[in-house]
């Protein structure tokens, strides 16, 4: 069968594109915008104008780009959290709750610990990662020891985190002085803001460097998954726990590890939001959705850590751009519709894939026939 060899080595660039996920993700994004345009037109709003605003509002000035990136950082991390869980065989629908406890931990350390910035920022991040990791680990223990489905407990833990946060916000020692339903601001030393004035002139006064935390985390996670024995074990359990156990890997232990790491990432997402954008925690009136947006990011990024960076930047820009749509009298909800449509089409993208592959397959066959 030396013939098979020729067939394998002949995997051209075109075939790689057709078999990969990127093409179908881009098609889904295009369809999302088309559906959004149809709805805008139906509501009597010019789609051209609205999309024009989305583009100029996010890319028009360096300041806008910076804000898009600042918006993106926390959801890159929650996206990474969800993507990591998918790769390791669990479904972290609890990133929302881990994100919230991460914010809380970073806030408490950020308000009460007085150390120089070089120590303070990493300290807050570590506190958030620990909080998110532990929060998720409780669910993991329930799953492994008691067989409780993680999806159910994650959703409940999201609500526990939500009310815990509102409780802590209202503790007098934490609550800000004066009016407003929020905590005290974190100390300046805990803020992830660009302090150089010359840079601020270009990037805007709200410029944060939190994106570096997100990108670094994505690189570390990609490395763990692809190049370490830890990643090997976690993925083996995720794909086929029977084979993993046969190979001597303790599935229960690895599931707990995977869920803790996933939780830690979401917790860091909370810290990045707090220290780069929010500076304080307000009392919630509803779930903020950063964790749930992480699911969207993970899916657009094909559960690939590096893919999550780009998917997160896209979603961040859409979120930030959406706040400007009211300027052209378009509802900002259109962004949610577009994102929802994209996810829907990514979910059914295997249908496109099969259609395209069978179409090109047929073409190749008839070409082979005429040769």
């Amino acid at each position, binding site marked *: *069968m030396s*013939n*098979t*060899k*020729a*067939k*394998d*080595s*002949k995997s051209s660039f075109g075939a790689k594109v057709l078999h990969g996920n990127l093409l179908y993700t881009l098609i889904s994004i295009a369809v999302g915008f088309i559906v959004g345009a149809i709805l805008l037109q139906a509501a009597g709003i010019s789609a051209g104008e609205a999309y024009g605003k989305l583009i100029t509002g996010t890319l028009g000035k360096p300041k806008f780009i910076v804000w898009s990136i600042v918006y993106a950082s926390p959801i890159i991390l929650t996206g990474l959290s969800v993507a990591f869980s998918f790769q390791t065989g669990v479904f972290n629908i609890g990133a929302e709750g881990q994100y919230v406890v991460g914010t809380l931990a970073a806030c408490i350390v950020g308000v009460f610990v007085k150390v120089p910035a070089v120590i303070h920022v990493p300290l807050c991040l570590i506190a958030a990662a620990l909080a998110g990791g532990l929060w998720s680990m409780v669910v993991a223990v329930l799953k492994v020891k008691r067989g409780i489905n993680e999806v159910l407990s994650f959703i409940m833990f999201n609500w526990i985190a939500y009310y815990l946060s509102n409780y802590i916000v209202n503790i007098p020692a934490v609550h800000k002085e004066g009016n407003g339903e929020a905590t005290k601001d974190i100390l300046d030393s805990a803020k992830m803001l660009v302090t150089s004035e010359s840079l601020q002139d270009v990037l805007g006064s709200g410029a944060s460097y939190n994106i570096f935390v997100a990108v670094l985390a994505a690189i570390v996670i990609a490395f763990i998954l692809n*190049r*370490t*024995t*830890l990643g*090997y*074990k976690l*993925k*083996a359990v995720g*794909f*086929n726990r*029977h*084979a*993993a*156990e*046969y*190979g*001597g*890997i*303790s599935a229960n232990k690895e599931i707990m590890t995977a869920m803790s790491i996933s939780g830690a990432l979401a917790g860091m997402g909370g810290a990045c939001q707090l220290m780069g954008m929010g500076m304080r925690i307000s009392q919630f009136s509803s779930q903020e959705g950063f964790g749930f947006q992480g699911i969207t990011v993970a899916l657009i990024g094909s559960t690939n850590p590096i893919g999550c960076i780009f998917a997160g930047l896209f979603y961040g820009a859409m979120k930030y751009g959406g706040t400007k749509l009211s300027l052209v009298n378009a509802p900002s909800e259109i962004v949610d519709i577009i994102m929802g449509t994209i996810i829907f089409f990514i979910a059914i993208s295997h249908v496109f894939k099969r259609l395209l592959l069978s179409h090109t397959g047929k073409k*190749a*066959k008839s070409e*082979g*026939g005429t*040769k």
Partner: protein
Amino acid sequence: MGRESHVDLSKTVIAMHDIVKKFGDFVANDGINLTVHKGEVHAILGENGAGKSTLMNVLYGLYHPTSGYIEVNENKVSIDSPEKAIELGIGMVHQHFMLVQPFTVTENIILGMEPVKGLSVDLKSAREQVIELSQRYGLQVDPDAKIEDISVGMQQRVEILKVLYRGADILILDEPTASLTPQEIGELIEIIGHLTKDGKSIILITHKLKEIKASADYCTIIRQGKYIQTVDVSEVNEDQLAAMMVGRDVTFKVDKKEQKPGEEALVVKNLHGKDYRNVEILKGLDLTVRRGEIVGLAGVDGNGQTELVEIITGLRKGTEGSIQIHGKEVFGATPREIFDAGITSIPADRQKHGLVLEFSVADNLILQNFGEEEFSKHGILKRDAIQKKATELIDKFDIRPRESENKPAGQLSGGNQQKVIIAREITNDSELLIAVNPTRGLDVGAIEYVHKYLVEQRNKGKAVLLVSFELDEVMSLSDEIKVIFDGKIVGSVPGKDADENELGLMMAGGGAHE
């Protein structure tokens, strides 16, 4: 073999002429001819990947031939879909059954072609038709049983009935005996006899020579996509068939020197265990395997073999008993501890336990060893070393396609998946190897290799426990054959004086002697 032939040479039902099928540059079928007559059983023999399935998919309308043509009943036809094939009276029974588990036998058979009475399905007349068909061809099935409750052999009968119900006169059976017990294989051969007597023609895709001898009239041999020849089965013996298939002489006789077994490697005492339904299936089993011997475990599926191996390897918890490997108690230990104590295994279910299908072949080859110094340091995988090892093993074990290091294991054919597992376990070179159906789905060349290896391990003084539904395999390799029945060892026979009938009787629970 004393079988009755029903071939009517005056009527040609299928004639495939010079069939060429290319996929891009790859030639899967290169000028293949096939002629099948009425009432004939025609075997198609070839190694894994020789192009048997491609040829049958061309006949069944799933592929278009690049060149060549097909005649059915002496008329030139173009078969462009399975529907067209069925219309022409061609039916296919796939290796992997396509049945709806919670449906009854009747419901499965009529699925897609339900007789209707007004607006509702006429189940009553359908049921009668099914009974009529099954009586005519000796295919006893309970028309009201649910698929999930019947055995694999029964499920295959349902598949055959499904094809007959659609009016097929030409039946393609793709590896029909792959998952059957010896008894079921005998019954299938009988059914094939009933079908041909009634004028049906059978195309049998297989690489089991013994079954070809027992059931086929003619045999067409394909090697690497090329037509080799068509032979009258009564005029050739198994060795000749094998040589034609592989292209060189193949020895079935395993060269095994007399050898005194050494000390006890594995001692299982009074082992009790439950199956997945929590029913006790092992009822005080005792088993000893010594160094330098192959112990074959013969038995009908479902008598506790699977559970025994799972408990020994730590995948399942036993309820009571003792398992010692070189004197070290491992009852209740983790799979890792048992592996480290010196037991490796070729698992029965290659896709469940043997492989992570999403992982690359290279990653699968280090499933137990990724933590060893050769493949990782401080928790970082040595990708180059892993790749190198994979290339080496793919080459050595003839895993196809070559250069599949980075392909997901799930994309390999079943036989090649098995080779990946065997390559890995052989490389582990443990003190005790437990091989469960190690040659299932492999072709003759690969089987020869595996058998040679098992004997080599024995000759090196390692212990081997062979669990197999292939009685021939057990008989030709084992120094000692133990028969398992109802969760206990009911008999023990030295391999060289084993008699198939005697073993068969013990496997069915009769005539125990120790």
